[in-house]
């Protein structure tokens, strides 16, 4: 019976102290009764293999003990969906952009690569993990506290269906007003951009005499207007064919991809600002130039990260629109549940 005693000892280990003796006595009696029954039916004592099989059938000690312990959860089923939503929001809203910016810096900033040789390039990841664990840990603690005081949270019991968000109906067409305003803004942007070459001095203000743009950037001066032109074209088409909702999502996706290509190419042209011709920079201006270039680097990286997110969002919207159209042509337009029933 040594095996049985070892088994009971293992079960005891996982039980609450106050219940240990009681449960082990009862469980031990049950198992001994089973063994006696088997032995009387076989007419001989159980061998080791048969005893092992009987104990295995009873279950792993931790699992057996677990059934006696009251079910506990750090975050219960009521709050869990909200907990998951907050974790996702933090992951996509903060951690994912962090990764994108790091990749951008590693790929497009030679100065960053130079200052982080070899494995030092991975150095920021230690910061990333501690940040991620801190955020997820803090959120988990907040939700665990909420779970503990859930009975006192009144908003789950005193809710009003009239305050729920309205059902989002998929748009059947792109609003013409939206297209007209979009076109007007696109034209304004193009005019402003083209005026930069003539009135750039005014825009740069007092620093115009000291700094000028890197001449290599001029190659990208006109291509910057391509994404806007794509969107303008879409706005013109949607003015005539407002029911082509897929076109808007597709044009935005295309425009994002072109913009991403342009900004990635621009990011490689470092430094963006150089000393102006015939300008004698003193130490203060040289320092300002370094800081300005650094700020521009960061700005461009943030824009690239933003465009990457926009590419994903608009690609998803395009697929959704195309699928909705395909589904709509087969089953009719999607309707809210109350109308569909």
């Amino acid at each position, binding site marked *: 019976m040594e095996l049985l005693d070892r088994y009971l000892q293992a079960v005891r280990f996982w039980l609450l102290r106050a219940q240990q003796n*009681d449960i082990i006595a009862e469980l031990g*009696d*049950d198992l001994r009764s089973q063994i006696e029954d088997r032995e009387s039916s076989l007419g001989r004592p159980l061998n080791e293999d048969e005893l092992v099989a009987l104990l295995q059938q009873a279950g792993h000690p931790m699992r057996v003990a677990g059934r006696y312990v009251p079910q506990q959860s750090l975050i219960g089923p009521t709050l869990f969906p909200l907990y998951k939503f907050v974790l996702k929001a933090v992951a996509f809203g903060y951690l994912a952009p962090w990764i994108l910016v790091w990749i951008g810096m590693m790929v497009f900033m030679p100065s960053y690569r130079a200052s982080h040789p070899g494995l030092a390039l991975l150095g920021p990841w230690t910061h990333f993990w501690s940040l991620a664990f801190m955020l997820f840990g803090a959120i988990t603690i907040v939700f665990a506290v909420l779970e503990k005081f859930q009975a006192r949270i009144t908003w789950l019991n005193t809710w009003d269906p009239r305050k729920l968000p309205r059902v989002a109906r998929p748009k059947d067409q792109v609003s013409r007003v939206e297209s007209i305003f979009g076109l007007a803004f696109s034209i304004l942007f193009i005019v402003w951009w083209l005026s930069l070459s003539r009135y750039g001095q005014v825009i740069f203000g007092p620093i115009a005499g000291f700094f000028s743009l890197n001449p290599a950037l001029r190659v990208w001066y006109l291509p910057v207007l391509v994404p806007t032109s794509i969107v303008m074209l879409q706005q013109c088409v949607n003015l005539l064919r407002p029911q082509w909702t897929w076109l808007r999502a597709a044009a935005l996706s295309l425009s994002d991809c072109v913009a991403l290509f342009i900004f990635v190419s621009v990011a490689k042209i470092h430094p963006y600002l150089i000393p102006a011709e015939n300008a004698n920079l003193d130490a203060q201006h040289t320092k300002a130039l370094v800081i300005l270039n650094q700020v521009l680097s960061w700005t461009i990286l943030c824009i690239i990260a933003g465009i990457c997110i926009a590419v994903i969002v608009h690609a998803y919207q395009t697929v959704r629109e195309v699928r909705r159209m395909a589904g709509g042509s087969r089953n009719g337009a999607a309707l809210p549940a109350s109308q569909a029933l």
Partner: protein
Amino acid sequence: MKNSTQLDVDLFENLKLELRRGCLIVAVLAHLRQEHYGYTLRKALDDLGLAIDEGTLYPLLRRLETQGLLASEWREENKRNKRFYKLSRQGELILQQLLQEWETINASLDRILQEAQ
């Protein structure tokens, strides 16, 4: 990676578990109108076609006792200490209500199944 057959088996086992959970409580309460200790109760239920393993029965008995539906006492039998369980007065009242509910559900289910056929 589980294949679809394994998933079906798992799904069935989970649904069976849910279906059995409530039935086991009624069966245990009903059978404990007569005093039993755990092993004899388990054997009796098994003989009547409702097998229940010790890892399920004993935690259930403890829970029902904590809820006041069962009363228990340790007594010696066959030179071994055993814990005997019996339905309490409150348990009897609850069992009556559960059996009424059971009959209502059963009758509804019969009608639903007949209608479906």
